């Protein structure tokens, strides 16, 4: 398990990480997402012990040597072979190099294992970095953009490797490629300007905790319902997204829960189905960071038990 409490990292007057309370369950795959400069790499460096926090605390339930880190652009001495790099990575931690060939094979580097790393492409270096990170079977993996430089097949392989670690290791996976995070992570933390603006289960975020939207399917004409909903203050937007479908963006679930059904009834709308918007992580992420920026509010790290859900 990984936990941080009020974690702060300042450079001069600038806060790179501001009061971050991270909670990563043992054996989970945690996606740390955020725009460039949000503080993802700094958080990972703090967790890895490569930087010291200005204040706050970090608790990792693992021996420091069992914490493996993958930099966003892995680099190695160019005169080493791929096999030697992976062997060094394992030997430094376990004192043996018995998993090297297996790991090279899993990373798709068997054919290039005896070539100098200096001749590797960026994608191959990334695969090599992943192999070096996983070869010693760490119990905590901190991966900084592990698939960012890879082609589609390479990305697929790395995501599969990360997925396979679920349960065997605790993985914190930073990425700006939200589809990757959506695919492999079960928990998500959204960082924005150094603050954790959302933390919780991926399902919870996608279900609408970050983007208060409802998907409403009607029987009959939808225009009367649109006209009836728009004047309400708590309705931010109403969009016809299908022949008989409306997507209603609301200012808060609390208001919508008490008033939306009534408003539809008042408009004589014939409701076939009604539920939270089916959204992608990308949309949820944009909504959460937009809301956070507009409100200028402090970090939200909702308790999964008590977070606002439709």
């Amino acid at each position, binding site marked *: 398990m990984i936990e941080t409490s009020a974690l702060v990292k300042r450079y001069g007057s600038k806060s790179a990480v501001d009061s971050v309370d991270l909670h990563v369950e043992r054996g989970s795959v945690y996606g740390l997402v955020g725009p460039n400069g949000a503080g993802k790499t700094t958080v990972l460096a703090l967790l890895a012990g490569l*930087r010291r926090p200005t204040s706050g605390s970090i608790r990792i339930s693992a021996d420091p040597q069992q914490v493996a880190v993958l930099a966003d652009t892995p680099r*190695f001495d160019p005169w080493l072979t791929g096999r030697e790099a992976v062997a060094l990575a394992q*030997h430094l931690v376990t004192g043996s190099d018995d998993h090297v060939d297996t790991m090279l094979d899993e990373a798709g580097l068997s054919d290039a294992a005896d070539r100098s790393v200096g001749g590797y492409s960026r994608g191959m270096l990334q695969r090599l970095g992943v192999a070096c990170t996983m070869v010693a079977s760490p119990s905590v993996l901190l991966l900084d953009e592990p698939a960012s430089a890879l082609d589609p097949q390479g990305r697929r392989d790395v995501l599969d490797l990360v997925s396979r670690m679920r349960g065997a290791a605790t993985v914190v996976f930073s990425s700006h490629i939200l589809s990757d995070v959506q695919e492999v992570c079960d928990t998500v933390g959204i960082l924005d300007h150094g603050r954790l603006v959302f933390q919780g289960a991926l399902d919870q975020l996608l279900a609408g905790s970050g983007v208060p939207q409802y998907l409403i399917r009607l029987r009959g004409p939808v225009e009367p319902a649109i006209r009836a909903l728009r004047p309400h203050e708590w309705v931010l937007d109403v969009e016809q997204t299908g022949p008989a479908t409306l997507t209603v963006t609301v200012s808060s679930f609390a208001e919508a829960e008490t008033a939306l059904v009534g408003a539809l009834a008042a408009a004589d709308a014939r409701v076939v189905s009604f539920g939270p918007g089916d959204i992608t992580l990308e949309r949820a992420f944009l909504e959460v960071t937009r809301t956070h920026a507009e409100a200028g509010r402090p970090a939200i790290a909702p308790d999964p038990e008590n977070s606002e859900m439709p």
Partner: protein
Amino acid sequence: MTLWRLEWLRLVRTKRWVALLGVYVFFGLLGPFTARYLEQIVSFAGGDLDDVGAEFPVAVPADGLGQYVSNAMQVGTVVAVVIAAGALAFDSVPEMGVFLRTRVTSIRAILVPRVVVTCAALVVSFLIGTAAAWYETWVLIGAPDAAGVLVGAVYGSIFLCFVVVLVGAVASATPSVLSTVLLSLLVLLVMPLVGIVDAIGRWLPTHLPGALADLADGGTPLTDYLGAAIVTLAATGVLFEVAARIATKREL
């Protein structure tokens, strides 16, 4: 694959050993030759010695080793600083620093092999160069004092180890290989300036490189450089500790 083997491979595959050995052996062979044939070399180069009335003293064995030391300890030290910086500035590429730092329990595990292998390569190169200079001096000029050469070579080796650890300390506090090289050379250049005051200079590490030439004539007591050697060994130990502590505190 260990960190010791990593350093050995760095030395062999990057051909750094060729640069080190080449410099010391080249000057080892050139030094006694130029000491013995200096007059002829100047004449061959076009100098009319009769007109200016210049007179060259007859070369003695200490001159052969003196020429070696003066060349090898200048160019050789610059090469040594560059090679040591390449090995010891392991954080200059942060991603490589991350790879190593997150896999060891102490920064000393990274530092020790790098310092020891670099020192060993440097000392072996210097000793082979010294052996070449000794042999050629003996053939061309005459036999230098054997004890003086041996003890002088030990003093020279101590100085070279000091240089490596000094580079390590500078590397732990600077961001790149280039800045490590420049700052280390600056320190090594300033030290002899401080040593102009003889009472101070005879205790400084930069006093040691001259020992080989000085002791080769057999007239100087072997213990004349002992004080500087002790100070240098102590400074080497302190600098290693400084390097380890600064590197431990360093953030990537």
